[in-house]
């Protein structure tokens, strides 16, 4: 019952802050809040570099979350917000680095290593197979061996 009154109230509160300077810090608009969480989980906090803005409680991360929340409320798209962040903090702010000339080694490197490793493996396996196949006897050697074995066995039986 209480909820029924609460929801319009919350909506009234959340629709205002487009004009306010401070963004509302409460999870008032679930859709915007979900977008905020998604966006900030893809952005790096530059103070504690191995955390996302979503995870970090550094003051800068809090400020940036507020900034993003405000941008969502003014109707900016996710791509626009990311561009805003990259323009100020550089590609480093993106947890998923873009494919560029400078990041090519990062993206292609692992696959190159895999290909090289696979190549070496195949090369070695082939060589090993060849070595295993090599000690076959020629026809002459074969008959010689047989005759030796034969004479040996006849000798022993006699």
């Amino acid at each position, binding site marked *: 019952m209480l909820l029924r009154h609460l929801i319009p109230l919350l909506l009234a509160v959340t629709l205002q802050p487009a004009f306010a*300077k*401070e963004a509302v810090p409460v999870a008032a608009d679930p859709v915007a809040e979900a977008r905020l969480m998604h966006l900030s989980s893809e952005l790096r906090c*530059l*103070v504690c*570099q191995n955390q996302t803005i979503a995870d970090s409680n550094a*003051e*800068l991360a809090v*400020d*940036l979350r507020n*900034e993003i929340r405000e941008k969502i409320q003014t109707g900016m798209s996710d791509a626009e917000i990311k561009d805003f962040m*990259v*323009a*100020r*903090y*550089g*590609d*480093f702010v993106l947890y998923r680095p873009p494919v560029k000339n400078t990041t090519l080694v990062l993206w292609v490197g692992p696959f190159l290593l895999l290909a090289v490793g696979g190549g070496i493996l195949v090369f070695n396996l082939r060589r090993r197979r060849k070595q295993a196949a090599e000690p076959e006897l020629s026809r002459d050697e074969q008959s010689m061996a047989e005759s030796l074995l034969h004479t040996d066995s006849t000798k022993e039986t006699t």
Partner: protein
Amino acid sequence: MKAWYLIPLALFIAMLGFLGAGLKLDPREVPSPLIDKPVPVFRLQTLDTPSRLLSSEDMRGQVWLLNVWASWCGGCREEHPTLVEFAKTRVVPIVGLDYKDQPDDARRWLDDLGNPYVTSVSDPDGRTGIEFGVYGVPETFVIDKAGIIRHKQIGPITPDILRDTILPLVKKLNAA
């Protein structure tokens, strides 16, 4: 064929080389995308007289430094004597951006330690800091006559950095 046995050793040495180079890199120094871009426009209250505003446009036509500082910041205390000494030479005006600070604390800080700034402006909520891509104070920007950012120093300015990097750049920009 014997050379094959040397490959792991060669790889190991190469890896040592990479690791050694990595030791010398500071992961906190993230290259700013703002280099060679126009200085973000700001219009903020000055610290000493809040009724007076200073805008980034007011600095156009001269080479200037923007030093981001705060009274709560340890690194700023560290670099402050260097800045105070440098300001005495009057080579280049230094504008302070007082980042996420209490104006009272900031004024007291300058009274106690000396004021190297031609003006300081207040950025109490850090919005201007975000425009500048500030992520750790102190940070210092070198801005040319046309209002283009030419250099960003992350972390405290030392006399060495001042002499080897900032001063030559300021001289070059002044001559241009």
